[in-house]
């Protein structure tokens, strides 16, 4: 960092990130991947495009859980193309789940803000500058993308999926009164220390984990802003939403209802 070198006698170790003033905001994007060989180059290209055009400082942390399809090879090529200061590879040996992937990613993040999103192109990086602007506007601890408000929406969902989604969200709103319109969404911007604090406290998995993050955030009096996003679902055909998922969602919801 230029300021460290200028002082000459800095006692900070070279690996330690310096505290940031608002002008030096840096955004770390966490991309947990499993078998995303096809999509990873595309999402990284879109991220680079979005950040370059908006001028914000960023890094992309790819957390691959030992994908057998060669995702890691693709990630290494991306690191060569864009540089290891922008593309950080922090893989793991096996599929270990989202919560631990976030913990792992946050440990290696040098930004003061963390962006979490899906790596399968359902979340579009073009919304990230909007998240950032919203965060600055309201000084929010968390900015969450919502598919249910404003001109947020979805592509690729049939009627059944929409009914399940709206129905589940309705029940969630009634029971939890969370102050955010889209609780199961996973396209969010967090202040780094806020994300660290919340991950410590959350115990659920899957959809419910994302819900629990927002619920706990409200408990701790963190502020949540929202930005409408479009969610382009290209994988729904592989039936991601079976009876099992619905049952575990309801179980998780009732647990949150009874314990928060």
């Amino acid at each position, binding site marked *: 960092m230029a300021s460290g070198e200028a002082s000459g006698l800095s006692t900070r170790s070279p690996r330690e990130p310096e505290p940031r003033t608002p002008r030096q905001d840096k955004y770390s994007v966490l991309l947990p991947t499993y078998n995303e060989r096809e999509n990873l*180059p*595309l999402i990284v*290209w*879109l991220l680079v495009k979005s950040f370059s055009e908006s001028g914000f400082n960023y890094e992309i942390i790819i957390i691959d859980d030992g994908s057998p399809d060669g995702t890691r090879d*693709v990630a290494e*090529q*991306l690191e*060569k*193309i864009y540089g290891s200061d922008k593309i950080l590879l922090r893989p793991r040996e096996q599929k270990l789940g989202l919560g631990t992937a976030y913990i792992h990613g946050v440990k290696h993040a040098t930004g003061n803000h963390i962006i979490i999103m899906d790596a399968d*192109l359902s979340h*579009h990086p073009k919304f990230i500058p909007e998240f950032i602007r919203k965060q600055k506007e309201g000084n929010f601890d968390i900015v969450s993308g919502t598919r*249910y408000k404003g*001109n*947020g*929406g*979805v*592509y*690729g*969902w049939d*009627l059944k999926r*929409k*009914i399940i*989604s*709206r*129905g589940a969200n*309705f029940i969630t709103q009634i*029971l*939890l*009164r969370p102050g955010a319109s889209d609780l199961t969404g996973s396209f969010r911007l967090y202040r780094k220390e806020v994300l660290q604090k919340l991950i410590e406290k959350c115990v659920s998995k899957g959809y419910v984990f994302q819900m629990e993050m927002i619920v706990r955030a409200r408990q701790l009096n963190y502020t949540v802003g929202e930005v409408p996003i*479009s*969610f*382009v679902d290209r994988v729904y055909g592989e039936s991601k939403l079976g009876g099992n998922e619905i049952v575990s969602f309801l179980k998780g919801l009732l647990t*949150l*209802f*009874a*314990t*928060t």
Partner: protein
Amino acid sequence: MTKLAQWLWGLALLGSTWAALTTGALGLELPLSCREVLWSLPAYLLVSAGCYALGTVGYRVATFHDCEDAARELQSQIQEARADLARRGMRF
């Protein structure tokens, strides 16, 4: 207080008020028409809540925004990305 506790408190409060008024436990002599309405109020509220829920979810499903533009834009950007990355040496 958990959300569950809040609900139980709310229901207990409303329930006991309703019970007190309908059984005349407080010694209040309400006109018959009032008491008839009061008696059927819980059932009426339950049905209304059900209708409200169905109506709201139905409305939200019907107005659920379909992002055709976003899908098209994504498709063309995928083409652009693949071409650009290939130029930079990516082997797919």
